[in-house]
């Protein structure tokens, strides 16, 4: 089904003031310019009512794929070009951008794409003959420098847990083989 499009689009003032004054008894009578709870964060000028009618910068050339929110008409005048979408994660990101920012499908798909992208990153490293140094990438040198006893404790616990897991796995296989013989 085709999305419903708004039937009324007003690009200037939201309500034609002259008409409103005529049609609606008491229009604007309680307006209080002092009631501006956004000040000083926002210095209200009324520019909001002009919507997109401002002087816009030249458009940056689009040499890479840039996804844009469906809540806006197109890409912004300037945009980042870091890590354009690619591979399976890129497909997921393109799919995510079919949904609005208010949709869980948008954000959850992006998080899924991020996790897929991590695996792609490792595969890409391997393809280029680079074995990721997980120890260095996780910055564990800092742990060794500033929390040596904690680092040793963590390493010992990891080794103990891994050993126990290996022992249990190999034991259950052995038991399975023995039971199979009987």
């Amino acid at each position, binding site marked *: 089904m085709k999305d419903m499009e708004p039937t009324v689009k007003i690009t200037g003032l939201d309500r034609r003031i002259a008409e409103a004054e005529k049609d609606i008894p008491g229009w604007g009578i309680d307006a209080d310019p002092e009631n501006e*709870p956004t000040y*000083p*964060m*926002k210095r209200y*000028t009324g*520019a*909001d009512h*002009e919507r*997109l009618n*401002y*002087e*816009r*910068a*030249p458009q*940056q*050339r689009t040499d890479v794929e*840039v*996804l*844009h*929110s469906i809540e*806006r008409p*197109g*890409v*912004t*005048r*300037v*945009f*980042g*070009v*870091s*890590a354009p979408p690619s591979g399976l*994660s890129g497909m997921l*990101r393109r799919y*995510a*951008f079919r949904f609005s*920012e208010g949709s*869980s499908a948008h*954000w959850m798909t*992006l*998080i899924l*794409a*991020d*996790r897929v*992208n*991590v695996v792609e*990153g*490792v595969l890409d490293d391997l393809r280029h003959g680079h074995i*990721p*140094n*997980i120890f*260095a*990438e*996780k*910055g564990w*040198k*800092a*742990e060794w*420098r*500033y*929390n040596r006893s904690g680092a040793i404790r963590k390493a010992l616990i990891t080794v103990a847990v891994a050993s126990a897991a290996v022992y249990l796995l190999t034991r259950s296989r052995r038991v399975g083989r023995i039971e199979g013989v009987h």
Partner: protein
Amino acid sequence: MIAMNYRGPFRVRVDRNKPDPEILHPYDAMVRVTRSCICGSDLHLYHGLVPDTRVGMTFGHEFTGVVEEVGTGVEKLKPGDQVLVPFNIACGSCAFCQQELYGNCHESNSQATAVGGIFGYSHTAGGYDGGQAEYVRVPYADVGPMKIPEGMDIEDAVLLTDVTPTGYQAAEMGGIKRGDTVVVFGAGPIGLMAARCSWLFGAGRVIIIDHLEYRLDFARRFAKCEAYNFRSMDDPVVFLKKTTDGFGADVCIDAVGCEAEGSTMQTLTGRKLLLQAGSATALQWAINSVKKGGIVSIVGVYGPTWNLVPIGNVLNKGITIRANQASVKRLLPKLVDHVMAGRLKPSEMITHRLPLEEVAEAYHMFSTKLDNCIKPVLIPNAA
């Protein structure tokens, strides 16, 4: 060039062969980075909590540098200028920028309408590479960057790009009246600065709440405020009510955001299962600790989905909630004045200075709070 390279949650590395950034737009500048901080909000990216954080991206939205090259349309900057660069990427001419909402620019972030462009802060904030690198592309160079005033310490300058304005705006949004009791949740760099700045607005009492003793000790010295550990309380809301005659604080500031500790339910659903956009414990406490008719100011960063907060209490107590990304450009003139006059000394919160090559260690140290880390700064070789 050398640059930080994100590889996945809790994994970053130094990329020694990242191509130098290029001028891609007439209003761009290329800046050689001289100082670059790791922000508490970078940890949300590092921990994999911000959607559309792509492998290969360079983080970093707090940096100073020297202008190396400018686009044909740049008029206010020239090569050789030393600049501090606000974390907001702002066009200066859209309806929001015209009204000084530089954190909400409509022409700098294609991927999301809910936030303006931010350097090195995922594609949800525009997909720009950030300043944890030797060089960085700075769009709209006539709008954001400010020449570092003569005589200003570069370490104060770099903290004027985010921490100081964000902390200041947190206090400003609180609408603090003379004598007000202000409670700040979180004694990280933003919370420390919010507490410090609350005095500038005439607060009568400033209380900071955290769970890390070394940060609470630091807060007492840096922000000259009361500091309490919520791990020592049965319920921080009851504690704050008791200490304000059962009334509640006049203003509460959430300077923690989505990685708050203190509630098993929030931690489980927000940080472990990702069923909400992080753990909203600090915001929950802020809403419940503020007085009726009070103000809650939010500068802690949350993800774009949803959070469990007691919105019914917001209604019934008549609370005003004010929140935004800091509008750095708007606040800079005032904050430069405060720094130059000695009323604020942001660089006092820098605890670690590391070469850019040690970015992985720096992230790990900051994330796990090793060596009493408050604020780490990266220094590129080319600085």
